[in-house]
């Protein structure tokens, strides 16, 4: 889940990291008031969840509160990359001596948060890392132990920062690392972290992204501290009709789980697949052997006949689908016979002959003998565990390509 800049600013502020006084405003009058309160020149920034604000005219400088209000009026109407702003942030135009970068990201390889610091702030950290690798300090923190200041200090010192700058920046990076871990973030970034002309360090801009799965346990932060509504997921993905229908079938019945995706798939082989990583393996196996999947799906958790039938029907009805392949790795919870009933029922209800429409059925495991009896009755090609996922996928590709 992504956060708007004004929310990210609140998060760092609540973690005890100094920020300049700012105002989040949704009307020009509020912007005028915020600018008057700040006093002096301000900067008015569009609050959108997309980049390129400056280039699009979403960031403007103002010398007076009236000018701030006029800019706010324009920016609030300005669409940037298809996004309308949630509001504007009114910030003081800070007197900056030097800009730094402080960030924490999730290192998937080490499976630990990674602190990053650079004395070259205000620009992309990727660019700094590529062009000036000696200006980027790095250090992992534990997933469990407290974050110690000395760990942050080592990371900052690696960039050559010393003296009072080192001492002032250290607690900021340490607190950022703590908020990253305690807030289940994927990214927590202050860029720029500014050293003002009076020597203070303040966060001028912040970016935060939270792990989607953690939004339940971070309810206090999201709802009470930030006032984000439960249905405000910030998800910009627009599901297809197929995906929406599969989701509705899944939601209508608590038994088992089905998922379907079809973005970037337009093949002729429909996939009803799943079980313990089986979906990814099988999709790859189909593609590697020259097959063209019409979709991606996941089925498991012992779905009802109706649910298996619903998914199979949706896949069978997709444009261009000639046959479906029903394949899983070995199942222990999901019942083979129930899935068999579901997919056969889907064929029959659509007026299709199961022995023609189902290229292969390869699900070994719980109730497989019963499943085999059903499939045998309808003449569907059935494979047990003696046939690998790879071979079953290859057979499905052969059949849909008319090789047999």
């Amino acid at each position, binding site marked *: 889940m992504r956060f708007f800049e004004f929310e990210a600013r609140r998060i760092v502020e609540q973690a005890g990291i100094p920020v300049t006084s700012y105002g989040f405003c949704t009307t020009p009058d509020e912007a005028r008031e915020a600018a008057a309160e700040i006093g002096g020149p301000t900067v008015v920034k569009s609050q959108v969840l997309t980049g390129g604000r400056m280039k699009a005219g979403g960031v403007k400088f103002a010398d007076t509160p009236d000018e701030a209000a006029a800019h706010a009026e324009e920016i609030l109407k300005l669409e940037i990359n298809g996004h309308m702003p949630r509001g504007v942030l009114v910030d003081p135009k800070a007197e900056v001596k030097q800009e730094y970068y402080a960030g924490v990201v999730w290192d998937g390889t080490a499976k630990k948060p990674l602190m990053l610091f650079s004395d070259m702030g205000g620009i992309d950290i990727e660019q700094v890392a590529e062009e000036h690798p000696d200006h980027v300090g790095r250090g992992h923190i534990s997933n469990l132990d407290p974050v110690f200041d000395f760990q942050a200090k080592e990371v900052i010192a690696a960039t050559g920062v010393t003296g009072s700058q080192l001492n002032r920046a250290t607690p900021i990076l340490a607190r950022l690392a703590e908020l990253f871990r305690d807030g289940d973030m994927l990214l927590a970034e202050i860029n720029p972290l500014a050293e003002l002309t009076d020597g203070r360090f303040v966060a001028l801009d912040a970016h935060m992204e939270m792990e989607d799965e953690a939004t339940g346990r971070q309810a206090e932060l999201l709802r009470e501290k930030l006032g984000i509504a439960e249905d405000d997921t910030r998800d910009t993905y627009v599901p297809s009709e197929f995906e929406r229908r599969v989701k509705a079938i899944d939601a209508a019945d608590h038994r088992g789980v089905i998922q379907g995706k079809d973005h970037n798939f337009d093949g002729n082989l429909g996939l009803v697949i799943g079980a313990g990583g089986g979906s990814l393996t099988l999709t790859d196996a189909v593609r590697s052997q020259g097959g063209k999947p019409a979709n991606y799906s996941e089925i498991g958790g012992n779905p*009802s*006949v*109706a649910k298996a039938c619903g998914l199979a029907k949706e896949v069978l009805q997709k444009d261009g689908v000639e046959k479906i392949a029903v394949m899983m790795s070995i199942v222990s919870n999901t*019942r083979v*016979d*129930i899935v068999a*009933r579901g997919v*056969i*029922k889907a064929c*029959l209800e659509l007026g299709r002959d199961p022995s023609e429409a189902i290229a292969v059925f390869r699900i070994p495991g719980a109730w497989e003998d*019963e499943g085999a*009896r*059903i499939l045998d*009755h*309808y003449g569907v090609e059935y494979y047990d565990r003696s046939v690998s996922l790879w071979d079953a996928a290859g057979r499905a590709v052969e059949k849909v390509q008319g090789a047999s």
Partner: protein
Amino acid sequence: MSDAASAGDSIFIEIEMSDAVASDPELATKLQEVCPVSIFKATDSGPEIVVSQLDECVLCELCVEAAPQGGIEIIKKYG
């Protein structure tokens, strides 16, 4: 036996109940309780088969055990 489900449109499963079972309201409540996929509906005159649910039968035989011996038979249409 009264073939309560034979007129339905199930594909895989059919259930036959004896006349005694089909007219027992007390047993009907029990069957409604034990079936995990809601195939039995209790009425004042006895159990009714919910035909639209028949294909969901998980073959647990809880209904067979709840009824007097031979009172309920689960028939697999696929042989």
